[in-house]
């Protein structure tokens, strides 16, 4: 399934008309130990680039932005008890939410794996 990345260090994986969103391994390493993840309620309408979630570490609280517009369909409930999943498996079990795609054309503005790797290498 195709996976894209944002310059704000979110990833989005497309599965037909829906997508799964999380933060990248680079982002979790920057934040340090994640202590809490505030997730959007299912049904929330997200706009591209808008703040959708907040990831807390001990010393920081970072907004997670919606890579594309759409509606939240599900959230990763296991993060409530185990926010450290975002540290240990940011790009698999530590996913944040599932959403519909309002406009697939919005994906065109995102980075592919190679472009994101290049971005991170430059930081």
């Amino acid at each position, binding site marked *: 399934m195709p996976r894209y990345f944002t310059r704000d260090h979110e990833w989005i994986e497309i599965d037909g008309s829906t997508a799964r969103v999380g933060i990248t391994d680079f982002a979790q390493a920057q934040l340090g130990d994640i*202590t*809490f993840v*505030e997730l959007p309620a299912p049904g929330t309408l997200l706009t591209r680039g808008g703040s959708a979630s907040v990831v*807390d570490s*001990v*010393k920081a*609280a970072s907004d997670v932005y919606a890579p594309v517009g759409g509606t939240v369909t599900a959230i990763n409930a296991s993060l409530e008890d185990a926010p450290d999943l975002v540290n240990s498996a940011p790009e698999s079990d530590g996913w944040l939410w599932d959403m519909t795609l309002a406009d697939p054309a919005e994906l065109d503005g995102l980075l592919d794996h190679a472009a994101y790797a290049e971005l991170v290498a430059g930081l």
Partner: protein
Amino acid sequence: MLATIGAATIDDLFVDVPADALQNGPIAGLPMHASERAVERHMAALSAQALTADQAPFFCGAGAYRHHIPASVDHLIQRGEFLTAYTPYQPEIAQGTLQVLFEFQTQVARLFGCDVANASMYDGSTACWEAVAMATRITRRARAVISGGLHPHYVQTAQTMARFAGDDVCLLPPRATQHSDDAAVIAAINAQTACVVVQYPDVMGRIPDLAAIAAAAHAQGALLVAVVTEPAALGLIESPGTLGADIVVGEGQSLGVGLQFGGPYLGLFACSAKFVRQMPGRLCGETMDADGRRSFVLTLATREQHIRREKATSNICTNSGLCALAFSIHLTLLGGSGLSQMARLSHDRAVRTARALAAIEGVEVINRTWFNEFAVRLPLPAAEAVETLARRGILGGVPMSRLCPERADLADVLLIATSECTELDDIAALAAALKEIVA
């Protein structure tokens, strides 16, 4: 030292200040320094210009109460390690303050019947507004219903803040009725209501039915914010959290802090565990150190201004640490049973006072029930009666007109408060003087 710095004069260090803005010599018209003895004499002379609570039969309340503070409370809070410490941001050398805060949070949570409490706020009135702001964040609604029984200063604080926050305050008018305005509060709750704010006991000492109001609020998806301005009452009546309040705030002054002409006081703030991440203010939590020993540390700071900046839950940047310590020590000396006894005595004195005043022709006790404060209707403006009593050396309560002069219907209402410090002689003196004034 100047040589090490490489400066010729102190003024060289102020080189960045524009020359025309730098004072050369002491600011004109202000006195020069004075000795410790001279300042003490000066301040003592000012202090003498007062009729103090200890010199007079004393019946003032309305949000600030006089209780006996054991001598060890003031002794302990003056220990330099408490008095001159900073906010405990370095937990390895601040376990004293941190453990106190953890104990304080637990005491407040138990007193209010809630899951969690924070490390304190400025005072009751600001804590009350913070609770409203928190309720609007949780419910994503902007309308707050405020009971007419809420202390008018708290109402004015909330109204002032709401104007800037863009929140909609539905304020019920204060009324001198036998019972609190529960029915009106319940009728005002609708699907846009974020919270209802109810004082318990209310400003005239009446005791609202919180369970009924909580049920009505919850049915509409709104939260109940209970406000306690006299925590000693909870030695005798049920805790608000137990009755269904979602957020309980209060003024902790009456335990350990003292009257102090209105400040510094102590904002108490407690709520359900599920709302803790929406809570304003500092929090202390339990953890372990590198050797595995129980330790305490300030936690969940990511809600706060120094990290979240413009997205913080509040701009608050302090707590009322030393007042929280005084409150906590006083409560530790009392214990649950001591608090009950203090509450029973305070209530007993109020019952005796009400009975003595009700016997005066023309004086009517308004409340059907109360804890240690009640309202009476006089046949003359209450402010006038209080001034006359003061000239006779009696601090005879707080006229409602002092709090809301715009309410002509409350001009003859006087609030009377008592505590375990109220002597039977004081009651007799008040009753005798009031009888003459009324006649």
